[in-house]
């Protein structure tokens, strides 16, 4: 009978692994680094999409703060408007707007995967679902902008 060393001519000469036995094999499990999403374009885009949800929350809270300021009377609202016009707040809100657009675009792009529509027996093409979402986005934005102009005018 051949010795183990003859069978394993190519095996490394390091000491045997004490945690491995024939009937209790030691399997290797890779640890997941915290920054697993760095260095892979689509994982990074995914994390950015999830993180920009915080900016959606922020813009909701901003709207609530604005309503509270209106409720407290003209002076309070003036002060709030003044705060909005400060350069650093403008810079922050430009960043928030870019984040919101990124979130919206990446979110809408996923819609055709989740939404499978049928007209009769024929499936609506995914591209049509996508275009429909964008048209709805533009229509709602135009409605809101139109209402604002109308109220201001």
């Amino acid at each position, binding site marked *: 009978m051949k010795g183990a060393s003859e069978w394993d001519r190519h*095996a*490394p000469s390091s*000491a045997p692994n004490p945690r491995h036995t024939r009937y209790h094999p030691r399997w*290797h499990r890779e640890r997941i680094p915290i920054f697993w*999403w760095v260095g892979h374009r*689509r994982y990074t885009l995914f994390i950015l999409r999830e993180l920009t949800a915080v900016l959606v929350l922020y813009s909701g809270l901003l709207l609530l703060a604005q309503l509270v300021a209106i409720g407290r009377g003209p002076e309070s609202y003036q002060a709030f408007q003044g705060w909005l016009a400060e350069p650093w707040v403008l810079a922050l809100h430009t960043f928030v707007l870019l984040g919101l657009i990124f979130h919206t675009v990446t979110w809408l792009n*996923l819609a055709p*995967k*989740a939404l499978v529509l049928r007209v009769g027996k024929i*499936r609506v093409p995914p591209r049509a679902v996508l275009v429909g979402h964008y048209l709805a986005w533009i229509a709602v934005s135009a409605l809101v902008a139109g209402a604002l102009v109308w109220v201001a005018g």
Partner: protein
Amino acid sequence: MEPVTLKVLRYRPEEEVEPTYQEYEVPCQDNWMVLDALNHVKERLDGTLSYRWACRMGVCGSCGMTVNGTPVLTCATYVEDVLPGPVVVEPLRGFPVIRDLVGDITDFMEKLGRVKPWLIRDEKKSPDEGEYLQTPEEVADYKQYSMCINCMLCYAACPIYELEPDFIGPAAIALAQRYNLDSRDQGEEERMDVLSQHDGVWACTFIGECSVVCPKNVDPAGAIQRYKVSATVDWVRSVLMPGRKP
């Protein structure tokens, strides 16, 4: 073609506590797949290298490995497409490594069984009553999901499966949908117990990488999101119309 350096992850549990890389110079020929290069190593350079393969034509789903960081079927990946070397070959992520490039897939097999990937009927026809007929539209509903070859590239591409090992995972959910969407099947309610749990569809955060790496265009990410939509619609209906059968 110039010789190509393969940098292969080796793990020999008897001798090593941690995996190490081993480099091989492979005189690749034109149009060789990564699997051909590995077979050359196994046959000519180092017989101790362990990995799985069988059909070498993209059907059996056993030669999935991580090549240059991306989960691929090595039998369907040209060496030329992953140059310049060294071409890094590692086992699929997310599975415990038994040896070298061989991962343990017991977890997947167990989860696959839990979603009952077979036709479930309340009442079975007797054979002399004939087949269960389907229209081409009814076949088209699930055909895409039936193309899965259980290669588990989608699991390797899914960070959620690594972070939350209880997640049922992309392929098993896509296969559950393959039967849910089959007009002959009546088992949707039975599968719902597994799919609508947190470890089912709701663990998925829609990264979408599973569908990108799928060699058969099964689109597991799409299957999971579709199930989320239909599960939500069922839930809303059950709230609005209590007592109605889902």
